[in-house]
């Protein structure tokens, strides 16, 4: 099953289970989502529950939050994660805090689904800003790297009591993978080991999991054994799985497509080092520059297999 189909399947099942689930966003209607990841939902559930919206991200997340506190379970689709910035006020100032500030009188079971990552679309359609959200108490943030997790994490997000940001990736939609035919939920806050290894732990998420696995495959030919951990959930972070692995390998490389400064890796490596004395750490992320649509400059900016291999070799120099 393709990644994009796994998303549609998760939404279809949850909309069948629970009439409170509705989908709001730009081009979510008969168009079926910008990456065909919502195909068939409008036809099945109609325009009351699958609602095209104006180009107004701030209001759409606000409407989603308001509907959530009043008894619905909205999914708000923000086409590009870059545009999530327009909706951060209702997400961060309201949704993430409403349970706390009302002492549990209200909660906001909202899913914001948004698409990150570079695919030749330029400086304001390419960013991975999930790390920005990791310091917001009250939010959960998940990012699937496989079709099975896209399905399982989206379904789990729709059963949460509070707001969840579900981050997918432009380059993942056409990828294929096995998805169990039976219904399942991927627990939020649990990482997955994608490849076993003994020399270094590579902790990553989303599309970069594919890059990490390929780098690990090629490094194996050099005699370097990499364990690849797909974080899946960024808030909360599954520190236990990362530390179980790093305690064996004694070396942790973090890999992300976004900026490494104050990034996922910065947080993860710091916390792993707090638990594991002497752990060798390194991080790989985008260069400190905007991500251009220019093919040469885009490829130069974001991490690739070669950079990961180089960083691993460098980390393992005694």
């Amino acid at each position: 099953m393709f990644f994009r189909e796994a998303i549609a399947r998760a939404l279809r099942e949850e909309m069948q289970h629970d009439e409170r689930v509705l989908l709001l966003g730009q081009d979510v209607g008969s168009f079926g989502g910008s990456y065909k990841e919502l195909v068939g939902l409008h036809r099945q559930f109609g325009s009351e529950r699958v609602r095209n919206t104006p180009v107004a991200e701030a209001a759409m997340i606000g409407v989603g939050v308001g509907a959530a506190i009043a008894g619905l379970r909205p999914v708000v689709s923000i086409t590009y994660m870059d545009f999530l910035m327009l909706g951060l006020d209702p997400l961060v100032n309201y949704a993430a805090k409403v349970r706390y500030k009302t002492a549990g009188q209200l909660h906001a079971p909202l899913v914001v689904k948004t698409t990150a990552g570079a695919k030749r679309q330029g400086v304001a359609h390419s960013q991975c800003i999930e790390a920005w959200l990791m310091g917001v108490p009250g939010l959960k943030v998940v990012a699937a790297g496989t079709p099975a997790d896209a399905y399982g994490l989206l379904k789990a997000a729709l059963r949460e009591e509070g707001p969840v940001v579900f981050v997918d990736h432009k380059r993942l939609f056409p990828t294929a993978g096995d998805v169990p035919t039976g219904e399942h939920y991927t627990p939020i806050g649990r990482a997955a080991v994608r490849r076993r290894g003994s020399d270094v732990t590579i902790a990553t998420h989303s599309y970069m999991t594919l890059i990490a696995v390929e780098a690990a495959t090629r490094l194996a030919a050099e005699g370097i054994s990499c364990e690849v951990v797909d974080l899946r959930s960024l808030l909360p972070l599954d520190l236990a799985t990362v530390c179980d692995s790093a305690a064996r390998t004694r070396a942790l490389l973090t890999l992300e497509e976004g900026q490494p400064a104050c990034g996922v890796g910065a947080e993860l490596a710091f916390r792993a080092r707090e638990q594991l004395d002497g752990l060798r750490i390194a991080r790989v992320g985008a260069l400190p520059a905007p991500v251009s649509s220019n093919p040469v400059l885009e490829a130069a900016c974001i991490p690739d297999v070669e950079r990961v291999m180089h960083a691993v070799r460098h980390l393992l120099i005694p």
Partner: protein
Amino acid sequence: MKPDAVELLRSMMLIRAFEAALMSRPDHGFQLLSAGEEAVAVGLCAALTADDQLLCSGRSIGPALARGLDPNLVMAELLGKSAGPCRGKAGRGHLSQPAAGFLGAHAVVGGNLSIAAGAALAMKLQRRPGIVACIFGDGACGAGALHETLNIAALWQLPLLLVCDNNQISVSTPRSEALAPQRLSDLAQPFGIPGATVDGMDVLAVRDAAQRFADRARSGSGPALLECVSWRFATHSTSTRDTRPAGEIEAIKARCPIKRLTAELEATGHLGRHACEQLQRDVDAAAAAALRFADAAPYPDVSEVLTDVY
């Protein structure tokens, strides 16, 4: 049974007395007072029913009391006591009691508008009988949030009553320096939403206009925008200095909505001097009791800093 004019007067007087009691305390905290603007919330709430929900800005004391929240609980919340409806975590800026029809305050200017539209969408989709009303200041009218919300409310014909409490000043900036439209209710017009501007110091005018729009929303005819032109007596907040000349503030206080309604009721023989004095004693006693209640209540335990985060 709609509250009659004497009840509206009592409600406005309670807000005034409550705030005076709060301000008598040196530990009153960071507050935004509703004094001078009582008629907006009281007039609006007279048009709401138990099925409805009210949201407001961070200037929440008037709206909360007008909506009928227990003054004891409100005072406890404002003073950070765990007997408040939000266990003291919300304070004035985020006070709420949804079970009492008060989805409540949100202290980001304009931040409550789209939230209110979402609550209205839920009511409409779940075919519940209520409507949603949202009070916001003139300061929110320059923000995109209002225009985005008006567009969506019109497109989806939401049961939403947007009420601009136009006190004509944003902290220190007069609306003439901040907002181009002469009449803020005109902002609804391009969206095909009915709008009206009323004297926000006249509680009966506010009530009548709010009733008309609330009935309309209740019958499925969609949203409306009501502008209430009001005057703020105090500074923007208890930590802000007032830059208005003293003479101007005195002139503003002469427009007091409480004095105005009292004079009307006395002139028409609906309220005698004795009854008016009794009303004042009643609200003063309620305010004093609220302070006693809040004082007797404990602060939240320090462990609550981590409860209800997720």
